[in-house]
């Protein structure tokens, strides 16, 4: 075993840069991607235009309320300009505060106070519409309250007094609150605050790293080298077996390194079930990579195949397109795709058994050239 590690070390030193690049890829690339992700997510804003057809404090307050929303980049344009931009897909949606807005509210009317323009590509139209409607609704509800009070008391209190009282109540009294927590009985509570995205991204880069580094099996299968295995004290099968073990061990230590790094950077809780599923994931992929690389004779075609598989892997792993819906509809996917047991922290992994079996079978079938 020691001789195997020694010889591997000599080989590694020759291409140390490329090799260590891929070895540490899961840690480095995950951190880079996460930083980019969070930066882009924080700065991503939906462009919206609000057209003010009248200049009243009420219209201004509605505009201010929309400007305070975190996910919106607000433009104040003329109606014509805004609609042209909307048609050219430079804006997501346009809202027009119609003239007579404040007048209408004060008189107790509430129909068609604002006009909302959307097109088929407006992703953010509905949530923003809901927000604006709920804001206008608070204004019209105030008017409604005023008229109810007015009816009871017959003009004893003015508009200002009533609206002031409402805002007093809103700030002073304890109004309805909502709380949210996860049920601790169903499911294990440990993965409560897991950052799912982090582990999905890590899983992808681990995939790339493991499969790209398993190219040794193809490189060491060249005809020029094959004849030399006869002189070795190990048979070719043993050679491949030991090396797969050494590589797997190396990737497992990368797992531990990643866990430690993510604990420091993102305060991920390190639990036994997490480490276990990470290690299982790594073993699954190492076995799969060993099987796949045994099939190929050209390194380039192998890389190529890995890239294609990694593309399918990426799309179906839920990093780019959330796949919760399709996975709960077809739970088979979570059995076939290695990333789901990792994310769900399952203890048992049917794929490991499958690949282990395949690995042993292909090992026996490997001809001694």
């Amino acid at each position, binding site marked *: 075993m020691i001789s195997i590690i020694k010889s591997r070390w000599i080989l590694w030193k020759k291409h140390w840069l*490329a090799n260590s690049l891929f070895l540490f890829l899961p840690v480095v690339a995950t951190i880079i991607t996460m930083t980019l992700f969070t*930066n882009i997510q*924080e*700065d991503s804003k*939906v462009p919206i235009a609000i057209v003010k057809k009248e200049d009243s404090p009420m219209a201004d307050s509605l505009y201010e309320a929309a400007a305070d929303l975190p996910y919106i980049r607000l433009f104040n344009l003329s109606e014509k300009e805004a609609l042209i931009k909307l*048609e*050219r897909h430079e*804006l997501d949606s*346009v809202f027009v505060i119609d003239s007579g807005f404040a007048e209408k509210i004060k008189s107790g009317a*509430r*129909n*068609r*106070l*604002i*006009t*909302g323009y*959307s*097109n*088929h*590509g407006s*992703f953010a139209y*509905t949530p923003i519409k*809901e927000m604006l*409607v*709920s804001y206008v*609704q*608070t204004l019209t*509800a105030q008017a409604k309250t005023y008229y*109810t*009070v007015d009816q*009871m*008391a017959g003009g004893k209190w003015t508009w200002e007094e*009533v609206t002031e*009282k*409402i805002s007093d*109540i*809103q700030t002073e*009294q*304890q*109004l*309805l*609150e*909502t*709380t*949210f*927590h996860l*049920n601790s*009985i*169903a*499911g294990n509570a440990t*993965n*409560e605050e897991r950052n799912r995205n982090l582990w999905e991204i890590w899983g992808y880069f681990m995939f790339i790293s493991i499969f*790209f580094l398993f190219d040794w099996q193809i490189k060491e299968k060249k005809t020029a080298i094959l004849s030399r295995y006869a002189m070795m004290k190990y048979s070719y099968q043993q050679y491949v077996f030991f090396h797969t073990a050494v590589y797997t061990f190396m990737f497992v230590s990368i797992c531990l390194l990643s866990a430690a790094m993510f604990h420091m950077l993102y305060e991920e809780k390190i639990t036994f079930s997490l480490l276990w599923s990470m290690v299982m994931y790594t073993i699954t992929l190492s076995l799969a990579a060993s099987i796949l690389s045994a099939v190929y004779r050209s390194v*380039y075609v192998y*890389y190529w195949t890995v890239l*294609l598989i990694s593309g399918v892997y990426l799309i179906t792993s839920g990093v780019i397109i*959330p796949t*919760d*819906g399709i996975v*709960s509809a077809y739970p088979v996917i979570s059995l076939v795709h290695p990333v789901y047991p990792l994310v769900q922290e399952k203890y048992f992994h049917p794929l490991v058994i499958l690949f282990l079996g395949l690995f042993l079978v292909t090992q026996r079938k490997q001809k001694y050239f």
Partner: protein
Amino acid sequence: MGKQLLLFLQLDGKNIKRKWRSLPLLFLFPVLFTLLSAILIAFLIHPQEKNRITVGLIDHDDTPETEGIVRLFAQSEEMNSLFRIKEMSESEAEQLMEQGEISAYIILPKDFTANLYEGKSAVLPVIGNPNKQMESHLIYEIVESIARHIRSSQANILTIHHFASELGKNEEKLQDLLFQQFTDFVFYTLSSGQVIHEKTANNEATSSPMNYFSIGGLFIIYTSWLWLVYLYLYREIDEPLVQRMRLYGVTKLSFLLSRMIWSLFIAISWTGILFIPLHLLLDFELGMIDFLKIFVIYFLHGLLFLCCICIIEIVFSQEKVQLFLQLITFVVISLFSGAIIPAIYFPIWLQELASYSFSYEAFYWVREIVFYGRKFVSFLCLLCMTIGGNIILFGISSWKERLQS
């Protein structure tokens, strides 16, 4: 140089003829890949009826008012399109949650209504299923937005209560008044949609997302074909042969150029094949001259993209490093073009960065021609970038050549 290039072009042509059987696979892969993504996105947008998320509702208070609130939940637009609400007891909810049948449940606690009226703190707890966290959070968001409506109604009702008691109404009458106000406000909230007058601003053909994403999808498919065919034409040449070729004055660039030309040719003709049915299906009004312009844009974009790919191959000697960097380049260039996510949704700094990329420029003009019927197209920027890219490619390759010899 020209003679060598011709030779390699012939060689690669023969090579393609020999391996033609795998070409359809290359053709299909990006198309299937795009279809797979489209299916996944369709699943995301239109959740199946049978997996509509179920939400439990537990009513401990059981007053006419809480029934109003239940109705408020049931008729909420967001709630309705995604969720199904079921009334149940707490033990039932616990059990269903363990079986994974419900994603969350909402509890209306005892004395909920009384607390609401008196301005004491009334709490609406939402309990999520730890196995369905994303859905649970979504439900909480919606409950929070409904609670916002209730809060504003509550403040108004309390105000009315305040003024009514100042007028000296007796307790029983007050209670009646409050209840009446409450139901009033529930209906008032339910009909809040009237506030907005909704219009759609577009002509169907130019702004349906289907059209946008099929043109965008084609652009990405074209780019991936370029890369895939380029990789497909790779041939392993061992070092002694390279040495011998160098003695005859053959540079690495000439066989890279031959690969570039072949991949451009194949990718563009495939795109043409795919573009014709798409054009008939989506019914754009494009004349012959527009096709020519789009062809030129695609050509320049392809040339620039292959330049980047080539430069990576020249600079880095390890194949896996090359491939990985090419993958990153491909992803970045595709994202920057705005064909996957429209660029207006990027953060400003990213928008500015993307606008310097050739893929953004190319896709911008394609969009202008296809969607807005632009007649004038400025190729100047793309042309300059292409010339610049080629100069860099030639420069780097001759520098590398000199370094090796």
